[in-house]
């Protein structure tokens, strides 16, 4: 964690998320209007009173944005955590125990992985009828754990065969303790990546499902905002703010999380890292090549 704070990109990412989370947490205080009430004329462009304009129904877009952040972020985080836990447990168990347990878990993981995710989700959502946030969390979790499980499994396999784990077993540590004390801590960067990736994925998927009309249209989220904007042809009539607000929200969350994930990825795979030393080397090499070229 302290390493993250030394990286400019990660700090920027954390700052962006912090702002959004504060908005979401204090939505009742921050939002100037109720998100579900008509407070002005329809499709009014941004003004001082309505800094993000109004929707076709004359609702305040900024208030919707703030309330939407609340539900979009909470669903994203909850589903992300659930996906990560499920994926980590399945990957760790399979990778560490091995044998037929691993073979069957791996088979299941890969099988679910190749089934197209969104069509499956749509099918589930279609049969479930109108889906509220908790149903969305459940179905996203049930269909989206394999990526994390796959990553965790291969990393567990790699760590399991590292000599210090074998050495610990040879000294007499039990299998369980070796998994918990020797392997799990080494998986932490990967679990972090998995968590953030899963939150991104959950928010993306939730938004997509709601945009396609599977969400509860009365529940204000960024996804239902898009759905309503689409239904009122906001873009075609030029009411870009109606679409831009939720889009910006989603993009900002993506940006913030991606910046953190980029840094985590460099921690987990140091060979991918391009730190100050490498940049300096590249710069010096290029300068020298130019100087030699010029002399000629």
């Amino acid at each position: 964690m302290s390493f993250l704070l030394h990286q400019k990109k990660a700090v920027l990412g954390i700052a962006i998320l912090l702002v959004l989370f504060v908005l979401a947490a204090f939505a009742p205080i921050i939002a100037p209007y109720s998100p579900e009430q008509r407070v002005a004329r329809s499709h009014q462009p941004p003004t001082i009173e309505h800094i993000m304009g109004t929707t076709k129904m004359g609702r305040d877009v900024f208030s919707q944005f703030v309330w939407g952040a609340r539900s979009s972020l909470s669903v994203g985080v909850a589903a992300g955590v659930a996906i990560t836990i499920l994926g980590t447990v399945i990957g760790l168990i399979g990778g560490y125990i091995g044998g037929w347990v691993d073979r069957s878990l791996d088979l299941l993981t890969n099988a679910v992985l190749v089934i197209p995710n969104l069509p499956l989700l749509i099918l589930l959502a279609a049969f479930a009828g109108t889906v509220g946030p908790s149903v969305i969390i459940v179905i996203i979790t049930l269909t989206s754990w394999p990526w994390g499980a796959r990553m965790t499994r291969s990393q567990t396999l790699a760590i399991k065969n590292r000599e210090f784990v074998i050495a610990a077993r040879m000294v007499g540590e039990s299998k369980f303790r070796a998994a918990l004390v020797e392997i799990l801590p080494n998986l932490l960067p990967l679990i972090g990546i998995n968590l953030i990736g899963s939150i991104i994925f959950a928010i993306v998927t939730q938004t997509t499902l709601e945009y396609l009309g599977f969400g509860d249209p009365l529940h204000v989220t960024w996804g239902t905002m898009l759905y309503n904007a689409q239904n009122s042809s906001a873009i075609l009539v030029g009411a870009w703010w109606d679409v831009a607000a939720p889009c910006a929200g989603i993009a900002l969350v993506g940006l913030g999380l991606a910046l953190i994930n980029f840094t985590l990825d460099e921690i987990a795979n140091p060979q991918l890292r391009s730190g100050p030393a490498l940049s300096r080397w590249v710069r010096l090499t290029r300068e020298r090549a130019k100087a030699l070229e010029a002399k000629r």
Partner: protein
Amino acid sequence: MQAFLRRTSTYCVALAIAIVVNFVLPRLMPGNPVDSMIAQMGQRATPEVVAALRARFGLIDQPIWVQFGGYLKGLATFDLGLSTSYYPRTVVEVLARPLIWTSFLITTTILFSFAAGTLLGALSAWRRGGKTDSILSPLAFVVNSVPPVVFALTTLFVFGVLYRLAPVSYAYDPNLDPGLNGTFLLSVAGHVVLPVLSLAPYLIASFQSTMRSSMISILNEDYVTLGRAKGLSSAAVMFSYGVRNAMLPMLTHLALMLGSIFGGSIVVEVVFNYPGLGMTLFTATLAHDYPVIQGQLMLMTLITLGTNLLVDIIYGLVDPRLKGATS
């Protein structure tokens, strides 16, 4: 050979899951989908149609395994049932034409973004630590975290509404008669531009990140250094020693991405009213046309599995190390 068998059994399990989900879901549903479908069909719901629907959705006095057997038999003969919203057309008939449009859209997008992503990834790995890399690589992470719907709506607004650079709706100009003539093909090409542009960033970013890591690990190999030590030009080392080897994992990645490409195409088709599978799925959900929704999942799963299988075969042909192992 053993690896190949294992892969194939994975696909069988995937197919089985899709089949079971399709079969079981309607039977688990709390409400009654048949009634809502029949209500949607109104007058067209003849007694035969109602009976067929009831049979398909388990509202029939038969043991469940007999129902399942009948269901499997239907699948084996490509009988995915009747569409309720497009009655009397069958699901297969309903999905045939959209499949062509979606294939066209997806293939174009994949060709374009695979080439671009691979090249960008290779470049940023080759110039690791340089300016190109330090901008492109984090950018790819960010782009990869933004859903296609955001790109699609932005593209629609900026290029379609604000600057009117390309048509924003449907796959071709509806005033034209479909045919193999220049005007029509040009119209088709023009209509696919914005959907491709909306779908591409996400894919390019994903291919780029994967290619970068793959290429970086290849560039650390001794044979790449040997290529440089041989005095070959940078381009020769980069392509025939670096990219050539780094491409192998990219094939696997491409096959795995296909599922999410389908996901992306659904959204983009809805935004641009593109008459592909996604649009069909969207209208089918509005009309509670469950057979079409189910057929859609079967179709996309089959295509994804087929592509994965194809990639496995190509992999075996391209990588001499695997060829040696199987013979």
